[in-house]
């Protein structure tokens, strides 16, 4: 049974296939409106989430399918001590496909090994969040028309930001990509990502603390939030959270064809005044996320023979 745990579970050919399908869904939504009629998606969210959960639910409804879910993690069987394996075995009896978010890293793989239906990882702690990366990739494809020959700036929390690590891994497979890693010293990209992904493949990258200095070079600026929940120490969070705030003033240094991305939710790292700037892509990213989730559901269901 094919599941999606990590973005690298998908080959570049499959990413291409999904982006082509998502663009076709955007162009001809009616052709897909009943493709999942009579099928059920179970959303198992053991951790609070608004946008990812709603995106999956909207994706399944737009395919003509139905959604079942649990009210909240607190009221689920997990709160009674049930294992992930038992929960998904049970849910597999009701649903045709599962989207799961869990605070523990590796929980999605446990689910995939035990479920009788495909499992989509909707985030397992700080580990992987592949459908966010799919949303990012479709946005890059639609904004830039390519995945290769891009200068990609990643800014903010590059240490704990799982979306950043996944995006680096995904884009590192294309030709001519250069990364500019912009973060405070304390939140730099972990050395294993630099060594195992970037250095091993000979991919050029630059590390800096200075956003303004590198802004004119970028094709894409991927901003991230400093996540309070990843810190054990509140003081560290407060010290680092306002380090990078993108304002219209700073944006004057950027190119006209820059694409500003953000996995959302944002706190204050992108000024609201930038939302009206044509270079802002983050709400398009949200929309693209739903289309990629539709394409992914279709692909996994088709492979499962459903």
């Amino acid at each position: 049974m094919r599941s999606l745990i990590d973005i690298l579970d998908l080959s570049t050919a499959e990413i291409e296939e999904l982006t082509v399908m998502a663009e076709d869904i955007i162009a001809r939504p009616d052709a897909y409106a009943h493709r999942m009629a009579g099928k059920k998606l179970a959303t198992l969210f053991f951790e609070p989430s608004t946008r990812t959960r709603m995106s999956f639910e909207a994706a399944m409804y737009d395919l003509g399918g139905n959604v079942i879910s649990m009210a909240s993690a607190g009221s689920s069987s997990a709160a009674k001590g049930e294992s992930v394996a038992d929960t998904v075995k049970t849910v597999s009896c009701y649903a045709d496909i599962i989207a799961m978010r869990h605070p523990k890293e590796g929980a999605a793989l446990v689910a995939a090994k035990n479920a009788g239906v495909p499992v989509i990882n909707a985030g397992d702690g700080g580990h992987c969040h592949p459908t966010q990366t799919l949303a990012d990739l479709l946005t890059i494809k639609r904004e830039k028309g390519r995945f290769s020959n891009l200068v990609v700036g990643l800014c903010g929390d590059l240490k704990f930001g799982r979306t950043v690590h996944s995006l680096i891994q995904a884009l590192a497979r294309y030709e001519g990509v250069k990364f500019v890693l912009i973060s405070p010293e304390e939140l730099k990209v972990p050395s294993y990502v630099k060594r195992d992904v970037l250095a091993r493949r000979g991919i050029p990258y630059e590390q800096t603390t200075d956003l303004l200095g590198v802004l004119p070079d970028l094709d894409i600026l991927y901003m991230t939030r400093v996540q309070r929940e990843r810190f054990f120490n509140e003081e560290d969070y407060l010290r680092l959270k306002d380090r990078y705030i993108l304002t219209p003033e700073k944006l004057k240094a950027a190119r006209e064809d820059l694409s500003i991305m953000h996995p959302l939710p944002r706190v204050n790292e992108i000024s609201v005044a930038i939302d009206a700037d044509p270079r802002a892509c983050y709400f398009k990213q949200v929309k693209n996320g739903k289309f990629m989730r539709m394409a992914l559901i279709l692909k996994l269901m088709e492979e499962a023979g459903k």
Partner: protein
Amino acid sequence: MNIDSIRNGMVIDHISAGYGMKLYHLLGLDEQDVSVAIIKNVTSRKLGKKDIIKIDAEIPVNLDVIGYVDPGATVNIIKNGELVEKKNMALPTELHNVLRCKNPRCITSTEQELPHVFRLTDPERKIYRCAWCETKAE
């Protein structure tokens, strides 16, 4: 120093000096009710010094543990006092319940029944990562 030859069992030879006791514990030999000899700092032409473990009983031994601790070790299987098989160790590609994941956010930290599985991700640098959360083994 004389240690009697064993009749049926296993001789773990060419253990890097100092690793004998570590292997003894990791293989759970301290919990076995069988004759075991640990010989430390034996002169070796190949290694200079080496450790040897002799187990005088046919008990199951997890060879992956030996390969992980000391891939240069050799395992000699003895039956009726004769050497019947010589095995060269190598770094195992996967380890089951040998190492424990130390990541407090790993699913294995809350679900006790899950096996602790580690995969060899970088043979050159001998790096193993948790199969669940991909955290590097310490």
